[in-house]
């Protein structure tokens, strides 16, 4: 009489433990694994640590420490939240182990440094710092340090931005305007031009001459929708519906912003 009970218990335990395992069947892409970047206190003393700390400074105060390459009011941290650490806000640890990679943007295999040059050119509407110069080298060092212990060739949970499922409706900028006014204007301003504190940028402009240009990743509605969905408003990520995220992204990206520098005559 006890035997079947023991057996079913065994089966239950076995099925539970199987459920906890990643499916690793051939032909399927492996399930993303979680990764936590190291804490700040693990930045080593010495010249490498100095480079990492410099990279962090440039990252969070880009205009102050790499101003000649920046053409607008954004910093790296405007999009890469938590100093480049936050999952689904294109974290540096996820980027570091994803490069070099093939990019359809320019049909080339790019190194991380080249990718960061793109950030300056498009997202910061500026100019690319030299690949072997201090700016790129220190941001790469900061990324390398942050990726310590991250596996290469295995997808990491939270790398890049959220890839949204295709929208059920065509994204509607007019509806997005209402979402923007209700949820975004408080910080970024009804005019989208950001808000300021004593001449310093408080909340970054999301359109207009001081925001990212049309060549930036976030100028693509799908990418912006994924970013908004997981990160906006600050501290309330994943609170907008998918439809709201799509519509507000369509609204923001329908506004004026600097042209794509590749298309300037």
């Amino acid at each position, binding site marked *: 009489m006890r035997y079947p009970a023991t057996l079913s218990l065994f089966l239950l335990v076995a099925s539970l433990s199987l459920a906890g395992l990643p499916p690793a069947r051939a032909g399927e892409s492996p399930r993303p694994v979680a990764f936590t970047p190291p804490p700040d206190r693990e930045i080593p003393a010495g010249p490498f640590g100095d480079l990492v700390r410099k990279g962090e400074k440039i990252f969070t105060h880009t205009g102050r420490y790499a101003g000649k390459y920046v053409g607008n009011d954004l910093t790296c941290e405007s999009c890469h939240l938590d100093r480049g650490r936050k999952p689904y806000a294109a974290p540096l640890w996820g980027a570091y182990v994803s490069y070099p990679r093939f990019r359809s943007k320019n049909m080339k295999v790019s190194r991380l440094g080249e990718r960061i040059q793109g950030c300056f050119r498009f997202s910061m509407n500026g100019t690319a710092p030299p690949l072997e110069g201090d700016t790129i080298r220190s941001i790469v060092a900061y990324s390398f340090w942050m990726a310590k212990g991250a596996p290469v060739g295995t997808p990491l949970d939270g790398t890049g931005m959220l890839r949204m499922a295709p929208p059920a409706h065509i994204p509607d900028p007019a509806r997005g305007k209402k979402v923007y006014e209700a949820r975004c204007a408080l910080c970024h301003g009804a005019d989208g031009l950001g808000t300021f504190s004593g001449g310093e940028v408080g909340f970054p402009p999301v359109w207009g001459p001081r925001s990212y240009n049309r060549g930036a990743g976030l100028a693509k509605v799908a990418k912006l929708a994924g970013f908004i969905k997981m990160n906006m408003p600050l501290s309330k*990520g994943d609170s907008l519906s998918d439809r709201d995220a799509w519509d507000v992204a369509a609204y923001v990206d329908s506004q004026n912003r600097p042209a794509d520098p590749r298309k300037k005559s």
Partner: protein
Amino acid sequence: MSRSSHSSCFIFLFLSLFLFSFPSNSFAGEIEIEGKQIAHGGNGSPGSIACMECHRLHGGGMPLIGSPRIAGQPRSYIEHEILGVREGTRYAPIMAGVVSHLSRKEIRAVASWYAHVRAPKMPDVSPPDPTLVPLGKRIAQKGLWKKNVPACVLCHGPDGRGIPPHFPYIKGQNKSYLLRQLVAFAFLKRSDDPQGLMRGIARRLSPKERQAVAEYFSSLAPPPADGLPDPKQ
């Protein structure tokens, strides 16, 4: 000769009256003067209490009773908070009695007065706690993202000096008030924050973390007014 010196003396007196009556750089307009009268003596209705009894005439506040400094906060923010107290979205039983007598116009006037004035920092109840300030500084400047708490300065401006018009300054605020507000947000005694942003953040902080944040911001000097950098030394 004597007539001209008499009149220049008069002009001097007249000017100095203006210059020393108002502590900020700009002159007070009509609405600020009306607000000053309310701050000073209430609006004249029976039992009305003056704002200055807790916030002082120039908005320095009273750290001993946890009454906030409000000098130089944005006018629209002060108005919003007075209305919140009146509507019950901010739990403040004493102040609720005071502001229930005020008309909408009087609220705007008194908010204009306190946005206009400047005040030095009042001594706090105790010196900053050195065991808590570093933790508070870390949360304030870098956030506690594993609890989904962004850096305080992202919304409250560099070092907490405010981002007008919606985000008040918190640097140089007294510690009792800061802690009381964080607890009020966490436990729903205060629900006037846009989109519940502060309620969520305050709830996710531990009691020690809330205290550390209050210790850190109270250890700093207040800005001249919301969003303004420290005056150059």
